[in-house]
């Protein structure tokens, strides 16, 4: 089966890279799923969880990451997810994100609330699989 070569990079580090069979990400017009052989695509990512269904050496599995803005680009079996901030679900400190969410709500800080919410959703998606 054809594979996607996925690179998930944040501004200051490479977060994840490997082979995958399906990547689901949220772009401006809604969720988009990309499988091998997709038409070349360049889209603007929305804040949200990205789900990567891995194959190959890493084995069958799912990697969930929280991305905060960025781009998705696909050409020729190579998929790049560019985000200013990106975290894998296992890196997310759920308690801290919950605290941040509470605080953001009480301070009515919409941006911080969204960030914390995305982290929690990514963590929940990873836990619920």
């Amino acid at each position, binding site marked *: 089966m054809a594979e996607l070569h996925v*690179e998930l*990079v*944040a*501004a*200051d*580090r*490479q977060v994840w890279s490997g082979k995958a069979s399906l990547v689901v990400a949220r*772009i*401006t*017009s809604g969720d*988009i799923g990309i499988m091998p052989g997709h*038409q*070349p*695509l*360049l*889209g*603007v990512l929305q804040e949200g969880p990205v789900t990567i269904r891995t194959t190959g050496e890493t084995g069958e599995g799912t990697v969930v990451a929280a991305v905060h803005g*960025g*781009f998705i*680009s696909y*050409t*020729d079996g*190579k998929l*790049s997810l*560019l985000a*200013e901030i990106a975290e894998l679900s296992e890196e997310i400190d759920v308690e801290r994100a919950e605290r941040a969410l509470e605080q953001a709500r009480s301070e009515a800080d919409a941006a911080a609330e969204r960030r914390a919410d995305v982290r929690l959703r990514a963590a929940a998606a990873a836990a619920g699989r």
Partner: protein
Amino acid sequence: MGSQLRVYKRRIKTVSATKKITRAMEMIAASRIVKAQRKVAASKPYADELTAAVTAVANSSNVKHPLTTEAERPRRAAVLLVTSDRGLAGGYSSNALKAGEQLTGELVARGLEVDTYIVGRKGVAYYAFRERPTTKSWTGFTDSPTYADAKEVAAPLIEAMERDTDEGGVDELHIVYTEFVSMMTQTPVGRRLLPLSLAEVAEASEQSPAKSTDPKALYEFEPSAEEVLDALMPRYVESRIYNALLQAAASKHAATRRAMKSATDNAEDLIRSFTRLANAARQAEITQEITEIVGGASALADATAGSER
């Protein structure tokens, strides 16, 4: 102990204390260069992917964007000057400032008004002392800049680029920073960052061997090419500024290391020459003592010999 000898001993002690400090600073700077270099390397994948994305847009469509359109008659330019917060780095900051002066001179010669933006306390102090106006300045993060810092610096610059020239906006953005060539060489450079000519980006990425995907691929843009470019350009500028800040930090640490190394070497030289002088003073003292004893003894001997006769 002779007074001279005591003076030399004291100076040797002071210089060795200074040497210990400069040696410690040299070591710290050396370890920070490695860390800073690692950060430069870590930011590379993101910068590469961004460049690839910008290239993709450039190749697949001819969209216009304020950050990529050359002004017909540029009137104002912004210069971002990256210096350091702290000194003790040899000519690092003054070299960067000199490069900035030169670039500013060239821009003025082209008939442009120059807005100066400064990063680093040294640059701020330089301009404040000469009572020259600066548009905006940032301090406090030059040793290890984060992406958030770069974003903060980029925001007003991008905003100024997008604004109309008549309302205080600028037509060009130049950046002056110190490029980290190697541990021994760091060169201050002045580059034009904006307006970015998309053709240039496309050319540069075609030359790099890392680019394997077909740049002419027909992309599908989500939601549209304009909007993708709109979102892409500020990120591109931020990542370029981030890269410049990181390189400047690495260069600063390298300059500090070199300056501290030569300070340590100088201290060693001083200690050596003072030790020589102290030894000579001690020898002179001993010789004098011997002469005095011998003189005293022979005077005594002469006196006894005279009375016995």
